[in-house]
């Protein structure tokens, strides 16, 4: 992800030393055939596929361990509670949180951001205040803030980007002012892959006493995310984009904020005592986890993080950068193809348009060849508008994607160009 090697790529065991074919064998779905073609899955920014180890723990949980947590005084309930809390510790180690209590399980990034917006945001934002986001944001880091802004009479301000998709840091500095109450930034753009300099941006916001919320949906799967190094105030990510199950995600928050935040949802599991007159809430994290949580999901996520650490996140980052570099080269040679997002710091997301074919037509054609990409606005319509397109076709890579797959996609794209040009 950083300025690592961009040397010649030879064989499948390339610079990063990752044995891709051995690794692919651990993902059963990759052996699937689609319309008589081998399956080429390059829609990883939407969701990643799951290794057998994750599938197995989900199966084992429901086969052998299923019970509700924090309630039953019986054997399985105790086991489930222990597994759920162990998963919390697993996540805390993965993101280097000072304490596992700062790890709150949510449904995904969207819920995590909404939780922060509706509790911390509402508490903090008053009429005339400003919420600062960037042009790169996914709708899930725009809409929750708009809801709060509308309710409180606050204003959304937006950090501009240049034509490469790089944030204008000078504009950022100028936008940080005494009315700015929260900065909310995506760490990596889901649509064009830009990696945002979060450490630097947090430092500058903190100098003015402004907390920073980071949407880590696209960064956690692809680079080391160390909460103490980033020093962000909140960090949110989804399990399903990091080889884990859907429906489970993580909200990390700094102790000083979580301590005073009001509950998000009310219900069982988040209370100390209830009378009809008055309810006393649990401390965090329990305060923010009303109802029966996604127990299996948390265990699946822990298994996914085990998988990531077994491979090594730095190795993953290096391999993905190689694949991105190779794909960028291959795609660039295609007649009439234009890549959107050319930031020097980029995750393995390749967004492009063709002169001759609309992204939806591209996607339909690729699908016939067994290739899964994403076409459309990628839930980032303001960014699309800034780039002057209604949508793009997006290939997003993960550790199991090979150079042969990149070649297949490029060949298929050339076919499309020929077809629409004739």
């Amino acid at each position: 992800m950083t300025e690592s090697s961009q040397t010649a790529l030879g064989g499948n065991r390339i610079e990063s030393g990752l044995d891709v074919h051995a690794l692919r064998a651990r993902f059963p779905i990759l052996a699937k055939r689609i319309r008589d073609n081998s399956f080429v899955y390059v829609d990883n920014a939407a969701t990643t596929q799951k290794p057998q180890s994750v599938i197995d723990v989900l199966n084992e949980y429901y086969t052998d361990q299923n019970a509700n947590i924090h309630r039953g005084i019986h054997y399985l309930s105790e086991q489930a509670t222990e597994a759920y809390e162990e998963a919390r510790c697993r996540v805390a180690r993965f993101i280097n949180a000072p304490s596992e209590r700062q790890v709150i399980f949510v449904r995904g990034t969207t819920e995590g951001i909404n939780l922060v917006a509706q509790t911390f945001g509402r508490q903090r934002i008053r009429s005339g205040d400003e919420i600062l986001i960037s042009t790169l944001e996914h709708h899930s880091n725009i809409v929750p803030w708009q809801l709060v802004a509308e309710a409180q009479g606050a204003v959304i301000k937006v950090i501009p980007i240049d034509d490469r998709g790089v944030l204008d840091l000078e504009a950022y500095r100028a936008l940080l002012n005494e009315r700015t109450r929260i900065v909310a930034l995506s760490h990596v753009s889901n649509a064009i892959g830009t990696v945002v300099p979060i450490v630097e941006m947090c430092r500058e916001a903190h100098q003015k006493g402004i907390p920073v919320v980071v949407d880590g949906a696209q960064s956690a799967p692809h680079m080391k995310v160390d909460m103490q190094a980033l020093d962000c105030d909140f960090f949110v990510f989804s399990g399903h984009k990091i080889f884990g199950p859907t429906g489970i995600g993580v909200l990390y928050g700094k102790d000083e904020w979580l301590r005073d935040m009001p509950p998000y949802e009310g219900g069982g599991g988040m209370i100390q005592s209830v009378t009809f007159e008055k309810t006393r809430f649990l401390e965090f994290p329990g305060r923010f986890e009303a109802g029966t949580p996604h127990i299996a999901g948390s265990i699946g996520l822990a298994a996914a993080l085990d998988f990531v650490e077994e491979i090594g996140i730095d190795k993953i980052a290096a391999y993905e950068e190689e694949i991105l570099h190779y794909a960028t080269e291959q795609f660039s040679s295609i007649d009439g193809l234009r890549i959107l997002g050319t930031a020097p710091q980029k995750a393995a997301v390749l967004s492009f348009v063709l002169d001759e074919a609309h992204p939806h037509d591209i996607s339909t054609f690729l699908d016939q060849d067994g290739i899964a990409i994403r076409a459309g606005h990628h839930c980032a319509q303001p960014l699309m508008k800034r780039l002057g397109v209604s949508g793009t076709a997006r290939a997003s890579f993960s550790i199991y994607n090979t150079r042969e797959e990149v070649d297949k996609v490029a060949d298929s794209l050339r076919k499309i160009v020929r077809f629409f040009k004739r």
Partner: protein
Amino acid sequence: MNELFDLYQEIILDHNRRPRNYRTLEEPTSSADGYNPICGDELKVYLKLDGDKIKDISFQGQGCAISKASASLMTVELKGKTLAEAEAGFKRFQEMLAEEVDQEVDFLDFGDLASLSGVRRFPARIKCATLAWHALEAAVQGQEEATTE
């Protein structure tokens, strides 16, 4: 690949490359935006009526080959028709797209619009084909916009 060629027939590619009635209308009787939230595609349909009759119809906007060709074919088909005929046309068009894929259906009575029958095999693309018609329906009903959702 046969299904693909069925979807992207020559006539569709032609209407995509050279969409007919692709312009704004001076002083339209009404107009409406059609919006597909899935892809963000947006097109505007303009309508000029003479009593109950469609005197002129046009469209503009961004879209994939299917949505553009469908809009183009729609305007060609409906120019000079009555609103009742247009309504019946939309109904018939939707029925065509809902036909079972394996069913051999005769769309001969449907003119050039029948070239869009291949969309049946691509459920994800049906909304591309109906976008312009939804916009037209909104324009007729005096609404400013329509979505495919």
